[in-house]
């Protein structure tokens, strides 16, 4: 799992560079588009590489981010996705260290701001799932604040079931989709 994350990070770094290189000629992306979207998003970069479950992007590739990863001995900081049980926002035991590591990182760098993206699986109604996704992200945020992060350092966004990590309609996909993504 850990190895996969590191691998994903490298690949995405590459994808990010490719995406950046293509930025100047990416006008085709907005042709006919109604929504103004001049910058290539992290998500789209992930899409380009087909690595949607891994959640790092170009903005993580700065020197500060790299230092943080190296400074964490057990790799908890490199884990950027927390998964949840069905209809639950309880943080599972296995993710305690992950939340703690990120909370410590925030506490030691007061200028660092992160976004917690809450997600739900596709079952049930969409608007209710949007609220469930937020509840999950808020649960992680509360825990981080308890562990020393400042509330102002953590932004919460919910995508509900609208941005699945896996498009399947089975238990395996659902388990991957019930998640909070930590984005630096």
């Amino acid at each position, binding site marked *: 799992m850990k190895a996969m994350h590191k691998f994903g990070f490298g690949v995405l770094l590459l994808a990010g560079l490719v995406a950046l290189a293509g930025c100047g000629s990416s006008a085709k*992306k*907005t042709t*006919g*588009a*109604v*929504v*103004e*979207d001049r910058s290539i*998003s992290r998500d*789209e970069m992930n*899409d*380009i590489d*087909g690595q949607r479950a891994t959640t790092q992007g170009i903005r993580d590739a700065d020197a500060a981010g790299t230092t943080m990863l190296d400074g964490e001995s057990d790799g908890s900081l490199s884990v950027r996705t927390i998964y949840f049980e069905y*209809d639950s926002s309880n943080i599972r035991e296995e993710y305690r260290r992950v939340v703690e590591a990120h909370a410590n990182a925030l506490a030691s760098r007061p200028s660092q701001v992160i976004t917690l993206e809450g997600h739900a699986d*596709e*079952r*049930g*109604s*969409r*608007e*209710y799932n*949007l*609220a*469930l996704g*937020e*509840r999950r992200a808020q649960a992680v945020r509360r825990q981080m604040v308890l562990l020393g992060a400042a509330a102002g350092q953590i*932004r*919460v*966004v*919910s*995508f*509900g079931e*609208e*941005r699945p990590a896996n*498009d399947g*309609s089975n238990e395996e996909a659902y388990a991957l989709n019930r998640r909070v993504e930590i984005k630096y």
Partner: protein
Amino acid sequence: MSFNRTEVRWRERLRHPLWLLCALLALVPTADAQITIRITRSSESAQPVAVVPFAGSADLPVDLADIVAADLERSGVFKPMPVTEMPDRPSEFSAIKFEDWRRLNMDSLVIGSIATTAPDRYEISFRVVNVIQGNQIAGYRMPATAANLRHTAHRIADVVFEQLTGKKGAFATRIAYVTVDRDNGVKRYRLLVADIDGANARTLLESPQPIMSPDWAPDGERIAYVSFENRNSAIYVQDVPTGNRQVVASGEGINSSPAFSPDGRRLAMTLSRDGNPEIYVRDLDSGQLQRLTADPAIDTEASWSPDGRRLAFTSDRGGGPQIYLMDYPSGQVRRVTFDKGSYNARPRFAPDGDMLALVHQNDGGYRIAVLGLKDDSFRILSNSKLDESPSFAPNGQMILYATDGVLGTELAAVSVNGRVRQRLAVPYGEVREPAWGPFRE
């Protein structure tokens, strides 16, 4: 967020060339996103009717009688006779040979003719005839233009439906829906509006980020929806004819579940700006925001009663999601789903105000059900695994919803009595979140 800021943003948007493109796109029909409709279950008691091809229609770009017959068939209430089986094609009452039609057990006839009054201008005359009694039930004359011929055909179907069933037809209405497709692995989201038979599909919004929860204003001229184009949910109200739009809510946290009040002047919505998803009402004229719920649980998915005096909504204040009713504006709340399983969500009021359509979990699947508010009757109407987003036809006869199909989500419609079912699909990609528009005058 104040409305002044919204106006400023709007002026900024107006200056942007992409915005002009948006306005242009709103006028371009996108045939590739057109929905096709397949009837999967008809009523066994469907009445025979013959819609005879209208005289003078041979040179027209659309086949009026064919559109009328298709509308009537999709209602599930009628079984139109194929043109090839008709013994005759009368267009005048005096030309009807009643004996021939009675021999074929035909109950009703629709006959008519079209006269060209000026270039691209027509006058359509049609009659609804009772074959058994041999008399005319109704006769109408309607002006039409080349541009609105399809719409006129739907209006004729509305008249026929009402004359033969006593219930108002809803064929001359529109639906809004969201499609998702992939372009080189990148998802594209579109909000479209189309006629009820899938024709005239037009894109209102296209975005690389999710679009959800379209809701029609009662005037049929505006649609509220949620768009993630700025990396968080935000509520917009867009004018359908012009494509112009306003941001109504874009604060911290969730901005979702917009629902126009029956007078069109207020918008109920779910915001978590105060830390938890609560239901608010914004007065669209004054911009004033009123908070309606105050509970640590999730409160969302508000739906107005037709008289504007109650709101149905989803809350998990009792442990799991259930349906609650709030008196508006007093704020008094009571739960309405008891002994109906562990999951009931996303209520929508029927046009008569006596019934709610909702999403109900049953046997591990999520289904569309209707709950009678007066008698606590409960009926499960759908049978797939992931049914969601129910939306009533404005005449209350059918419920449109999203369901799991072969290519992902597609749409389905079911009659409130459960006897008629249809599937609506786009040729590729997914179609979801249907919202049935109001009657059009």
